[in-house]
């Protein structure tokens, strides 16, 4: 046996455990779920497998005919397309502030902004439900100073999703902020120096040095945030249970209720695959945009 062949055999042996684990705990369940999405596996089938039928594409066609599914799609896109960019902008803003030379106690601010990210969502949600209370909430009290409101944050179908987005942005910007800070700190100081010598002010330095140098960070943050936001679940699950009038029912929440509340596993599996396709398509779009720019 040649050295090369032996080396590749060794490499294959080394990756075997990881591949085996992925196959067993990831690929196999995904395949099973895919097959499940073509059956009407439900509570009756749990009792007796003979009560399950192979229904072909029926779960998918029924899904596309179900208004709740389209509401969930709309809500998910609403949340991701508004909440995602907002989170990235707020994170970048916070990163710039914390990283600014004039700021003291940088470590303290970093920690404070990061705390929401590591706090349990359920605890956070309880506090935010107080903040959002239509009569006694702090938010409406503050709106009152400007003669606005009161807004029924979680009870009004128009306001429930903005309320969820606000909570999600506040909860998640800390993590992206840390990544942006790392990105900012890796921009070589000479570039700013050169820009200053060329007479660039703060705004032009930001546009022509900081932003281009942060492009890879933007890409990473954008993709990870969007993938996470398309899987919106915990916030509406805890805050609104998908209401009022399904205004905060996301695709994952819809999948969860179909699967684990009503045990319509076939339906739930179909939703999961539609969501997979949406996320895949979106990530490809982002990848394409990134390539074109590069």
């Amino acid at each position, binding site marked *: 046996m040649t050295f090369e062949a032996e080396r590749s055999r060794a490499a294959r042996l080394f990756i075997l455990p990881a591949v085996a684990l992925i196959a067993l705990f990831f690929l196999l369940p995904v395949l099973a779920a895919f097959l499940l999405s073509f059956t009407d596996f*439900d509570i009756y089938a749990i009792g007796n497998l003979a009560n399950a039928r192979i229904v072909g594409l029926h779960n998918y066609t029924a899904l596309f005919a179900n208004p709740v599914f389209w509401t969930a799609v709309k809500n998910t896109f609403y949340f991701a397309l508004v909440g995602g960019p907002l989170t990235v902008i707020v994170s970048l803003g916070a990163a710039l502030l914390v990283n600014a030379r004039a700021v003291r106690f940088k470590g303290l601010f970093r920690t404070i902004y990061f705390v929401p990210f590591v706090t349990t969502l359920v605890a956070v949600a309880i506090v935010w439900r107080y903040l959002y209370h239509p009569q*006694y909430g702090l938010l409406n009290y503050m709106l009152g100073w400007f003669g606005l409101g009161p807004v029924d944050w979680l009870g009004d179908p128009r306001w429930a999703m903005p309320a969820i987005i606000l909570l999600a942005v506040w909860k998640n910007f800390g993590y992206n902020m840390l990544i942006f800070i790392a990105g900012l700190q890796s921009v070589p100081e000479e570039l700013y120096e050169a820009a200053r010598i060329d007479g660039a002010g703060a705004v032009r330095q930001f546009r022509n040095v900081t932003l281009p140098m942060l492009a890879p960070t933007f890409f990473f943050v954008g993709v990870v945030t969007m993938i996470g936001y398309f899987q919106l679940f915990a916030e509406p699950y805890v805050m609104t249970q998908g209401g009022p009038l399904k205004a905060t029912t996301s695709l994952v929440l819809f999948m969860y209720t179909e699967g684990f509340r*009503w045990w319509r596993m076939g339906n739930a599996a179909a939703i999961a695959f539609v969501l997979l396709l949406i996320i895949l398509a979106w990530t490809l779009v982002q990848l394409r945009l990134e390539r074109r720019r590069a």
Partner: protein
Amino acid sequence: MTIRFWALGAEADAVRTLARDFEHLHPGVTVEVQQIPWTAAHEKLITAYVGDAMPDMAQLGNTWVPEFVAIGALTPLDSFTTHSTVVDSAAYFPGIWATNEIHGVLYAVPWYVDTRLLFYRKDILARAGYDSMPGTWEGWRRAMEAIRSRAGPRQYAIFLPTNEWNQPVIFGMQEGSPLLADDGRYGAFSDSSFRRAFTFYLDLYRSGLAPVAGYNDVANIYQEFTRGTYAMWITGPWNIGEFKRRLPDSMQGKWATAPLPGPTGDSSGVSLAGGSSFVIFRTSPHQALAWSFIEFLSQPAQQLKFYQLSGDLPSREDAWHASGLETDVYAHAFWVQLHRVRATPKVPEWEDITSKVIDQSEAAIRGGVPVSRALATLDRDVNVILDKRRWLMARDSSRLADSARSAAAQ
């Protein structure tokens, strides 16, 4: 030997105390009580069934029984009750007992009972000119209007949470709606009886007698009740204890309970047959032992102890007599109401159907969808849910016919 018992919520703490007494009577037997929170109970029980990790017995909400019968998880109990000197159907509230019989077979024994009725502010009702709660819808509605006309801004006659199915379903039952038609094959919500009830219900919001609010919109219902934001609230027996504990002293003596009014008076004022029951799982190797524990907990004396520990109302009428609960100022309304209870349709899909009831109620209340369209949509959604049930029933009845035919041919 060990009996593994899954109890739900606060009942688990109470039953642990009783289980110690049972262990003293049966040396060598231990009862292992596992506490499951109500919100996770349904998922956990089904997951345990799928994973073959069921306990010997459990506490089950009465409305869940049909579902667990459908998946074949429960042991029929008739063979146990025929030899039992303790568990006798005659001792129980008939409407409650009936919820545990599926196609004439008994699968569960009622433990404690639950139903919904009116909690109200006596002082507000008196100011509106009533010294007791009217028994008919018409009188009730007039009392609510009288309360509303004397109320301040943001004060209402009644709190009917928009995200609860109980109210529209109870009103429907009161109007005589079967809810489901044709042995649970189709929804019957567009029928005239349910339509009348739904119109009555919806009108309470449209005329401003009830606020358009769900539980999520109310931070502390007990505070609001004290403030007079609502003069009435349809809720269950656990709130007797909560009202005593949570309302300030100034409010004690000013609230009362009353059986639900009905469209044509008292006897039509039915409510839901709720509560929890004991079940034994088919997979249990200790079924006889589990049954002896059920018998122990079903003794009137143990039911009373359980009531004292948990505040849950006993399922046996003799336990009510013995304790004087029957004439208790707050519990008496429940005693009356429990003789006027109806079971919800015994189909495994019921819980799912209730979520559709909430969807269409909210669409009508908050979204302004007209009654006939909301109810037509409700029937359509419910019929989709029941599609599998219709298929199974058709398949099984044709199979029965086939086997009858082949038996006749032989």
